[in-house]
């Protein structure tokens, strides 16, 4: 549809910069700052120190003995991004970008958030560095992730409700982009996934690539070989790209992305951009060319997922390339499967995953029993489930009154 290109910021035909002209200069400024930072050893040293002392890296790769046994004895390992400060992988990227904002002299930070994890991580790094912080969040997401709204406010951030469109992540990004267009002189847009215009998909992936680098070394250390498969949930795609990236050259390692299957395959009931017959096809949304859930006339579709972090109609452009090239495989897990998987991991391993991460666990529960008897997999536990306790209590009937 669009000519393949080897220009920077392109992943095969995907990626690029589809923004109003006003934002091109700020994007170029950001790309230049990132290039310079990468070439400056002091940047890497400072980031590594923050990741270790402040965020808690490296995160463990935890063997899951009871889940492994339940899935027929194949070895299941969990990459524990849930143990990071603020409770999800999102802080990896926020620390990287806040250092860049400092280098650029930008004192005001804006961000979008779906599940609230990226908003909390952004509010956290802004507090740590003394920067003004405004987080845009869909009104529906503010309701379903109320705990994270309170956390952001406690951290000193202003949370702005977005009541337009589907009142979820997509609309929060629209509003953040509008803010950035108006204030790009003094404001850095701290985008929270491998989405948006170049350089974001590359830069955010790089800031999360520590997940896969650690996991690869940890698995080799534990098992003396590479795993058969990696399994990660895919909203915008940052935790999955972070895990996959170090393994891209290891062609024997299967990469499996799990999208939100929601309540069904009909457009509007899910957020599975790659699902056959689901309504996803290549298109342009919010700065990048990738798969998009849309109608025949190019209007963006509404989406549904029980997990706010996966409830988004597009996907990072690098995933689109991995999909088309067959390097990664994408499947969907439904709301119900994610809920069940959440319960499974809690009961078998004493770990309550975020509803987003539970989608990856759900796929593991389906797939691992069919794998070779000596197979091993890594599931990315991208975040912890505390933020979802309201939904979990309701859906799994955990309140006192439900028990009688």
């Amino acid at each position, binding site marked *: 549809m669009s000519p393949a290109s080897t220009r920077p910021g392109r992943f095969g035909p995907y990626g690029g910069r589809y*923004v*109003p002209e006003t*934002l*091109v*200069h700020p994007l170029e400024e950001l790309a230049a700052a990132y290039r310079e930072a990468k070439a400056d050893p002091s940047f890497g040293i400072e980031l590594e120190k923050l990741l270790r002392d402040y965020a808690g890296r490296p995160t463990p790769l935890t063997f899951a003995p009871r889940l492994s046994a339940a899935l027929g004895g194949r070895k299941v390992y969990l990459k524990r991004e849930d143990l990071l400060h603020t409770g999800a992988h999102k802080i990896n990227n926020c620390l990287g970008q806040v250092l860049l904002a400092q280098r650029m002299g930008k004192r005001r930070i804006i961000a979008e958030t779906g599940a609230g994890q990226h908003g909390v991580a952004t509010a956290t790094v802004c507090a740590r560095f003394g920067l003004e912080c405004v987080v845009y969040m869909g009104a529906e997401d503010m309701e379903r992730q109320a705990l994270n709204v309170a956390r952001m406010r406690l951290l000193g951030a202003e949370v702005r409700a977005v009541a337009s469109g589907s009142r979820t992540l997509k609309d929060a990004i629209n509003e953040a982009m509008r803010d950035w267009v108006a204030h*790009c002189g003094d404001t850095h847009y701290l985008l929270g996934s491998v989405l948006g215009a170049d350089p974001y998909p590359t830069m955010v992936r790089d800031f999360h690539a520590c997940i896969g680098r650690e996991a690869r070394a940890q698995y080799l250390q534990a098992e003396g070989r590479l795993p058969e498969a990696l399994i990660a949930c895919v909203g915008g795609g940052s935790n999955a790209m972070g895990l996959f990236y170090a393994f891209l050259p290891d062609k024997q390692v299967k990469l499996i992305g799990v999208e939100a299957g929601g309540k069904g395959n009909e457009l509007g009931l899910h957020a599975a951009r790659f699902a056959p017959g689901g309504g996803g096809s290549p298109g342009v949304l*919010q700065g990048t060319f990738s798969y998009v859930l849309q109608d025949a006339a*190019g*209007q*963006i579709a509404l989406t549904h997922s029980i997990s706010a972090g996966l409830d988004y109609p597009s996907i990072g452009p690098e995933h689109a390339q991995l999909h088309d090239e067959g390097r990664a495989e994408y499947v969907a897990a439904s709301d119900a499967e994610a809920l069940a998987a959440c319960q499974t991991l809690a009961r078998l391993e004493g770990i309550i995953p975020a509803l987003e991460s539970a989608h990856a666990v759900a796929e593991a529960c389906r797939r691992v029993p069919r794998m070779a008897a000596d197979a091993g997999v890594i599931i990315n536990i991208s975040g912890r489930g505390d933020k979802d306790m309201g939904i979990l209590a309701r859906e799994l009937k955990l309140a006192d009154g439900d028990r009688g």
Partner: protein
Amino acid sequence: MSRFADIFATARREHRAALIPYLTVGDPSLAASLEIALALAEAGADILELGVPFSDPVADGPVIQAASQRALAQGVRLADALELARQVRQRSPVGLLLFSYYNPILQYGLERFARDAVAAGCDGVLAVDLIPEEAGAYRAAAEAAGLDTVFLAAPTSPDERLAAIGAASRGFVYTVSRLGVTGARATVAPGAKELVERLRRQTRLPIALGFGISQPVQARAVAAFADGVVVGTALVEAIARAPEAGAAAAGAAFLRGLRAACEMG
């Protein structure tokens, strides 16, 4: 010569800036949009910007967002905008510029879009979220069909970009008067004149200025240094405030006030 070139040449001869109103196609209804478009042409519009509603208008403020939503709720899509253009063209020589986000055009098919737009009588197209660097195939399709491509220039664009924007544009260049999304403002941004002057050094095309212009006094100020004055939000608001039956008259009355201001005196 293209119709846009003609229009700007005529306006210059008449010592005035071209007046370029924006309307969201399908707001409040497709039938009303036809009446509004014809009434605006009657009231002195030189070029009509036909806004194609989009679900995710990142460059638009609340007023045009709401207008888009009203149009989308009735099922209005790019094909309907082309049909509206065809109906306007049957009755008026007014310039017609399709104003859209890129995805609806991409999904329509670049070549098919350019052909159908020209067949409908459109003179040009502006895709708000498409910059020259990403527009290779789009420009080729438009050029082949004879459709002018108008690109945006912004206060943040350095001179090299202004040169590229000028080189990629046909008909005219649309400069954004300020940082920010569409929306009526009380004054013309101080940097607008400087931007137009910087752009003049990079292109010989006519230069229109938009984003934020809502009152005759602003239109007069802009007409002193730009070749065209774009009015969007304030007009969309005037149309939205009127009952549907009075929408065309309300839009025309609003435009007449601006038309007089575009005379450079």
